[in-house]
């Protein structure tokens, strides 16, 4: 299988790898680079557990070819906490019991981050829409929705 070089920034750090042509970004992040925060739940674009942010857009890393990410800026849940301080979304998920088994949590947090980056004061419907591509099988969606709304309120209080 032909190997192709790919360079991108991951959570602000430069990464350069040779990947097999056709390999997914999920595989490159988890098995080559060692960022295992995106999870492989279905490998077919339906569960959302592998969600990452590429150049500001929410993307499913199981459906994104690694070789198409040249020059991109990629953010994963592993890169959200700064200086050991949790991101407001991480804090809210922790406080609101919005994680149970935790497998869907990194993908949920990525989807929520893209929403709050664009819509700092979302309605409940906005949150439901933004998380609609992410499947949770144990926590139930209500604590997750409440956590995102709580994080949004914390953000707007900081801004004010």
């Amino acid at each position: 299988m032909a190997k192709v070089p790919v360079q991108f920034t991951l959570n602000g750090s430069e990464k350069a790898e040779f990947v097999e042509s056709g390999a997914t970004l999920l595989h490159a992040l988890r098995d080559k680079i060692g960022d295992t925060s995106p999870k492989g739940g279905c490998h077919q674009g339906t569960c959302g557990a592998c969600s990452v942010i590429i150049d500001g857009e929410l993307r499913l890393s199981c459906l994104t070819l690694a070789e198409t990410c040249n020059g991109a800026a990629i953010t994963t849940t592993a890169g959200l906490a700064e200086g050991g301080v949790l991101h407001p979304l991480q804090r809210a998920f922790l406080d609101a019991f919005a994680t149970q088994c935790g497998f869907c949590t990194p993908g949920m947090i990525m989807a929520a981050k893209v929403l709050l980056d664009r819509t700092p004061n979302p309605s409940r419907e906005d949150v439901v829409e933004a998380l609609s591509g992410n499947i949770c099988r144990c926590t139930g969606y209500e604590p997750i929705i409440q956590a995102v709304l709580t994080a949004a309120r914390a953000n707007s209080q900081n801004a004010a």
Partner: protein
Amino acid sequence: MELRKDYFADVRKDGLHEIGQGRPRLDSPGHVTGKTAYFADRNFPGMLHLKMVRSPHHHARIRSIDTSQAEKHPGVVKVLTANDVPHNVYTILILIQIGPEDETVLADGKVRWKGEAVVAVLAETERAAQEAAAKVKVDYEVLPAVFDMEEALKPGAPLVNEYHGQNYYLYDSGECRKVRFGNVEAGFAGADHILEQSYQSSPIEHAPTETTGCVVTPEGNDRFTCYTNTQAMFFTLDNTSIILQMPGSKLHFVGGTVGGGFGGKVDVIVEPIAILAAKLTGRPVCFIYSREEEMQISSPRAAEKVVIKDGLMKDGRIVARKVTGYTDAGAYSRHSPYGAQKGAAHYPGPYTIPNVWIDTYCVYTNRTPSSAMRGFGVTIGDFALEVQMDKLARLIGMDPLEFRFINAYRDGDMKAHRQPTEGAALIECMQEASRAANWPVAEKYMAMSSYRKEA
């Protein structure tokens, strides 16, 4: 959250300082930062990928298996068949003396359900393993299959599992689990009304977000570390020890982090074959179900059929209950004999009925083996029982909640299993439910208590 400490204040110790307070879960900081290590987050150099060749038939004799083309496929390291497994026939609950051993790790001579594991292929990459698995040739002689429990119990039905000799589990109480209390026929004879209804359910898949699997690495000295998402660590350790004929001291299981399970990860399916593969190749091995396998191959909740016959008086008392329950185990036992047994204990419901007769069968069919799932054996039973209760109330024109107050068991009542009721709180739960749901009941029911029998 409101905590009601006034109930049974005179009989219980009041040490409930934790209830009603928030406590952070120890694992949630790892979850929100993406640092929690699930089994598949371990990656070892030189790790092999295991893919299973599975039966395309529900019931077939295996005439021959030809692995020669698969072995020649680029990247393939080893191909395993039943001959490679030291103790190939097992059953999970043998550890608590529930037998016989009735399931093969890799099929030997016969397959009994569509999806049964036949040959394991180990290769350098997942893709090579998949391609090679497609090259394994298995010659099958298709046999008649049975998919319906009542058909399976009829004389002359195809025999699903020779290790049982008949299409039901043989309990020490006979062909079914039985409860006998009072005289059910006399109860029916004296009843004002009789209502018999059947209820049935389909298999249900747990669909955990993380699929079933494990990663095994050889540690030298013939010891192996298995990172797994099993929900049953010691069942897995002990059954693996039996299947591989290796002392438990050679096996180090690392688990406790499970990406959703709901009972779907209590079977011992992936670990023994992955450890055997690591032992025979000397290399790390990962065996992970694809999403398709998780949905089609992993054990579902059993399909059940429940026939309930109740004798009822005009004043609302249930005087007789006869229940026949059927649990579809699929082709192998796994946890289903236990599920059927739980049903037998459960079918009287939380009600005081003087005459009870219950039979529950664990039936073998050529369907996917069923196993544990969230209250298996009693969940469908509860659905059936409570629908039946609503129908009984409607039959005599009584409010369905008041009807349950009349029949609810209370402290001191004798249960059908001849165990006196202690610590009941059903009356109090229903009183709270009546208030919370704004479903008023007559004052005399609000004055009742599970503890004192005044009404």
